[in-house]
């Protein structure tokens, strides 16, 4: 949700900027669209579709996540000329690194998890086990490889909506925001910005 909000914010900002500059918004040309859809299928089955995610064993879910992210990295690479795509790829590589280092899932500490669900729910879960049917695994920080890249950041408490995210997620959100915002910046202005 938070990443889709970054996408929406980037697109709307780009549209607003283009409108303000009295220019048309040039949506980026995306190459290899089919690859994005194919790459997402393993994740769709393992994490999103309620019918399938409950039946897929953890080891297969982990393999699905890694395979899917590698394919998405190939998709991002084929579109590397787009502004912001390198930032997005950087985020994807950081997430992939910590996921591979922690048996195929994104680690989250019990302390962070208690900000998302009631403490009693977290206490009833096994450390080392999956956190629901999502991409996260509950791990103590001392047992986590690449702990700095895990889901360890939280929104301030005053936000009603709570989410734990990683450094890679920040890069991905920034990359997609910049990619879609930049399409609203007129070419002449882009040239001027390049000179600065």
């Amino acid at each position, binding site marked *: *949700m*938070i*990443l*889709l909000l*970054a*996408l929406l914010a980037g*697109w709307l900002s780009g549209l607003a900027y283009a409108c303000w500059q009295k220019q048309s918004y040039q*949506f*980026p*040309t*995306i190459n290899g*669209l089919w690859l*994005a*859809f194919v*790459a*997402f299928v393993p*994740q769709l089955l393992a*994490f*999103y579709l309620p019918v399938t*995610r409950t039946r897929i064993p953890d080891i297969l879910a982990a393999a699905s996540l890694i395979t*899917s*992210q590698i394919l*998405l*990295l190939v*998709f*991002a690479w084929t579109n590397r000329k787009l502004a912001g795509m390198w930032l*997005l790829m950087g*985020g*994807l590589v950081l*997430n992939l690194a910590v*996921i591979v280092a922690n048996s195929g899932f*994104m680690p*989250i500490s019990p302390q962070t*998890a208690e*900000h*998302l*669900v009631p403490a009693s*729910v977290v206490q009833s879960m096994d450390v080392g086990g999956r*956190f*629901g*049917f*999502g*991409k*996260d695994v509950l791990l103590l920080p001392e047992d986590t490889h690449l702990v700095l890249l895990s*889901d360890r950041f939280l929104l301030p408490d005053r936000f009603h*909506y*709570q*989410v*734990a*995210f*990683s450094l*890679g*997620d920040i890069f*991905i*959100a920034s990359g*997609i925001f910049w*990619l*879609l915002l930049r399409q609203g910046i007129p070419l002449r202005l882009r040239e001027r910005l390049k000179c600065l």
Partner: protein
Amino acid sequence: MKAKLVSLLTQKINRQYIQLAFALLALAILVLGAGAPMEGGGIGF
């Protein structure tokens, strides 16, 4: 002639909208698949 022009224009607009929708969907899939945030409530709770 006018009807043909309108038809061509409509087809082009429709095609552009479809392309835009697919491109947006692909980018949404990319960020959803690449990211791994855990939301309050979480998936499956």
